[in-house]
């Protein structure tokens, strides 16, 4: 599944006339996820950067991604199929957000 998403991302980047995939960063700080990117599209990369003092995760409720974020680290996820993906922190479930992935 991850390979497929990656392949799709590469294909979109190389497709004639297709726009290059973009990269967006979501900063985690003070027990909150920062703003999610407004123009996120399938194939774009989301970088989760944990600036907080606590270990967090960015975990999709639909199981499409689950990244561990020790303090001071970053991890990337390539946006898959269009749609909305709710996410949360497994350690602090009150921390939530929603990614809106456009085509």
């Amino acid at each position, binding site marked *: 599944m991850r390979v497929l998403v990656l392949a799709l991302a590469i294909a979109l980047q190389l497709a004639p006339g297709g726009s290059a995939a973009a990269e967006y960063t979501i900063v985690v700080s*003070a*027990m*909150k996820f920062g703003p999610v990117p407004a123009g996120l599209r399938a194939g774009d990369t989301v970088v989760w950067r944990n600036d907080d*003092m*606590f*270990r967090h995760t960015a975990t999709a409720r639909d199981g499409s991604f689950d990244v561990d974020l020790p*303090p001071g680290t970053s991890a990337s996820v390539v946006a898959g199929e269009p749609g909305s993906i709710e996410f949360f922190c497994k*350690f*602090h*479930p*009150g*921390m939530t957000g929603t990614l809106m992935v456009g085509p």
Partner: protein
Amino acid sequence: MIKSTLVAMLAVLALGGAALAHDVPTDAQIAHIAYTAGQLDIAEAEQALQKSKNPDVIAFAELMARDHKAVNDEALALLGKLGVTPEDNPTSQKLAADAAAKLKELSALDGPAFDVAYVANEVTFHQAVNLALGTVLIPAAQNADLKALLVTGLTLFTEHQQHAEHLATQVK
């Protein structure tokens, strides 16, 4: 005004202290109370990690130890930067005495009986700390960085309280 004073007094009393109920605590005292509360919860967590066999209780205790250590490390760094020395006070002393008694009480328990008692105490402890933070310590904090750290702490400890409350319904 009377109501807010009463809430503040109850909050401090909930933490086991009386001496600060009539006075506004200083930043040095607030820092000491918050740091002490964190250290005591770490001690409770370490006891749980030694005694419990319940995976959910162990995961909770690991989270408590990790998160409270992170807050206290940040607090120490901040106090060092500000040149503030935490000041011992009757509330901190009562907190420590109560926690020592609870550690001793829980040390006599094993298995599910320990798990139930540990989690129940975590609920009570976080309720008291969160009430005190929200009604006394955060409003009284003068330094903006200390206040911000306490606000983040309250967000974190509210998560812990909800986690403990949920766990309390699972552990039998």
